[in-house]
């Protein structure tokens, strides 16, 4: 058995380190900071989903904010409860009335699934669209969703939106609600990260990538593009719906302006900055999305503040520069550094004979 490349070990080590950092972080910060890191988790989830769709499957979505919005509304409605609303349960068979509302944490998977189904339904017509047309259609959806939410105010509360109460910490755990929401968000983020990793490195991911890189070639190798593209849409919007549900639980509020079209645009921008088609950069995309707006406006070391439009300028210019200079985003940068690291390490262990690596591998 060949030993794993040093950079692979490094990958697992950094994943473990990340888990430790996330678990210990709340000890060092107040509630406001903590809330920012809860947001980081939900942006991370949304970007994972977007990366599956756009990065691995090559379908551009400029409407992921709208998918998050759907998840948020579903979650808020379930938490509030509506008379007559009920959920069917198999064991024991029967309807569970939801008129009084549900515990917030249980609404998260339902919000994800409903959004996933909406995503599949949107993905079916999207099969006929590619590239720019798909970007257009999803963009139009992102612009239209707030107006639709305002129009059907009997369900969505119109422009005023829906307010829910901040949940108590469940299971009798002895931590504050903000801490509970933080751990809840990161636990889900961890599960979904591993799920995404399993999906993209296996059969599913190969099918997605083969469609992205050449649909005709994929078909001739027996991949069914319709199936896998709709599936990518479904999985991706499931992630977005979960992120939206986490958001509404964290801020206790949703209205049509919670998910403006600018969110959809910035989500795509962050996914690109993190690096399309690689999971290692997603956390950087989420960091940029959450913290760039704060620090671009109030730079930490400079004695003055910029306009509140500065984040947009930095975001836009950064996006263009990354596309021109570093198309792989942060993940591409990491991969390059990983390659250098591997090379250096091999050279050290094999006594400065870098050529021997390739020759032994060819013979063996």
């Amino acid at each position, binding site marked *: 058995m060949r030993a794993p490349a040093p950079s692979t070990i490094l990958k697992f080590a950094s994943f473990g380190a990340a888990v430790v950092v996330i678990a210990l972080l709340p000890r060092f910060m107040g509630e406001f900071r903590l809330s920012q890191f809860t947001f980081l988790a939900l942006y991370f989830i949304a970007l994972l989903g977007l990366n599956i769709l*756009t990065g691995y499957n*090559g379908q*551009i979505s*400029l409407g992921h904010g709208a998918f998050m919005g759907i998840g948020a509304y579903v979650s808020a409605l379930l938490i509030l409860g509506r008379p007559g609303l009920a959920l069917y349960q198999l064991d024991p068979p029967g309807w569970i009335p939801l008129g009084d509302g549900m515990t917030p944490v249980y609404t998260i998977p339902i919000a994800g699934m409903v959004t996933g189904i909406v995503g599949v339904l949107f993905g079916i*017509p999207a099969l*006929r*669209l590619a*590239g*720019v*047309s798909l*970007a*257009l*259609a999803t*963009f*139009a*959806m992102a*612009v*239209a969703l707030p*107006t*639709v939410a*305002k*129009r059907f105010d009997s369900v969505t509360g119109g422009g005023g939106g829906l307010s829910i109460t901040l949940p108590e910490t469940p299971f009798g755990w002895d931590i504050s609600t903000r801490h509970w929401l933080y751990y809840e968000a990161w636990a889900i983020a961890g599960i979904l990260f591993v799920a995404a990793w399993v999906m993209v490195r296996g059969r599913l991911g190969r099918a997605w990538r083969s469609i992205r890189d050449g649909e*005709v070639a994929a078909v001739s190798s027996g991949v069914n593009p319709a199936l896998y593209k709709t599936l990518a849409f479904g999985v991706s919007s499931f992630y977005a719906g979960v992120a939206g549900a986490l958001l509404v639980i964290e801020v206790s509020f949703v209205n049509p302006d919670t998910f403006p*079209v600018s969110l959809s*645009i*910035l989500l*795509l*921008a962050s996914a*690109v900055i993190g690096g399309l088609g690689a999971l290692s950069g997603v956390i950087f995309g989420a960091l940029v999305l959450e913290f760039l707006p704060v620090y671009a406006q109030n730079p930490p070391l400079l004695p003055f503040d910029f*306009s*509140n*439009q*500065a*984040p*947009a*300028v*930095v*975001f*836009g*210019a*950064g*996006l*263009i520069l990354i*596309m*021109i200079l570093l*198309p792989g985003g942060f993940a591409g940068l990491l991969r390059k550094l990983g390659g250098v690291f591997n090379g250096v390490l091999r050279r050290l262990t094999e006594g400065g004979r870098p050529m021997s690596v390739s020759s032994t591998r060819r013979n063996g």
Partner: protein
Amino acid sequence: MADFVQQVVSGLATGAIFASLALALVLIYRATDVVNFSQGEMATFATYIAWSLMDRGLSYWPAFALTLVLAFIGGAAIERVVIRPVEHRPEIVIVIVTIGLLILLNGLTGWLWGAEVKAFDSPFPNETWDVGGVAVSVQDIGTLGVCLLTVLALWAFFRFTTLGLVMRAVANNPTASRLVGVRVGWMLALGWGLAAVLGAVAGMMAAPTLFLDPTMMLIVLIYAFAAAVLGGIDSPLGAVVGGLTLGVLLNLLGAYVDFVGSELRLPTALLVLLAVLLIRPQGLFGHAVVRRV
């Protein structure tokens, strides 16, 4: 009946604005093979320049003309500086660059001019003419006239001048054009410049009714997308017909169908867009793309 005609005329006027922006999209699509998501923000930026010029005391038409010149230079410069380096990269890369431009220009507009809404003068008097018993707003007629004149001028440029011919050749076959000595890069920049001019016209015509703020053209851009797709994204005639049709259609639906009202006009446009993309992706006048496998 008089009311109906009035609605049609006012629909034509908004439709003309959609048509101008849609035509700008088509121009860039034909030159660069990409949909320019920043087209609306480019138009808004140009409109703010016009506002500043008038704020400095210039009267309307000189400011209008100067804005068009500046928009042309700006559009060409964007192509040279930002689009050129990614010209031969995959479609998704160029789309993302234009999205970056959208974010950047939107931020710059807000930074330079502030986010508060500004009033923008109209060159046309706020009166109505009586045409055979129908009260027609001069504003609408003026908007329609300016947009159609711009489109006609552009058509004449492409049809009757050598430069126009060369630009059509580049859009048609860049490689062959390069072989006969055309400087393809500069022709693409010229196309972006002309698209920026069209956008500036649309912006300045839309501003009196929509009022000027940094996101003014975002909604118009969606309508323009729908119009361009309806007409066929590679067809200039289609963009104009699509824009006018969409303007009239939305105005009539908004006025006579209670369910749609003014709130659901945008989702209706989205439905038109989706329906066309699904049923006839090449639009009314476009060409179906045939792929060699």
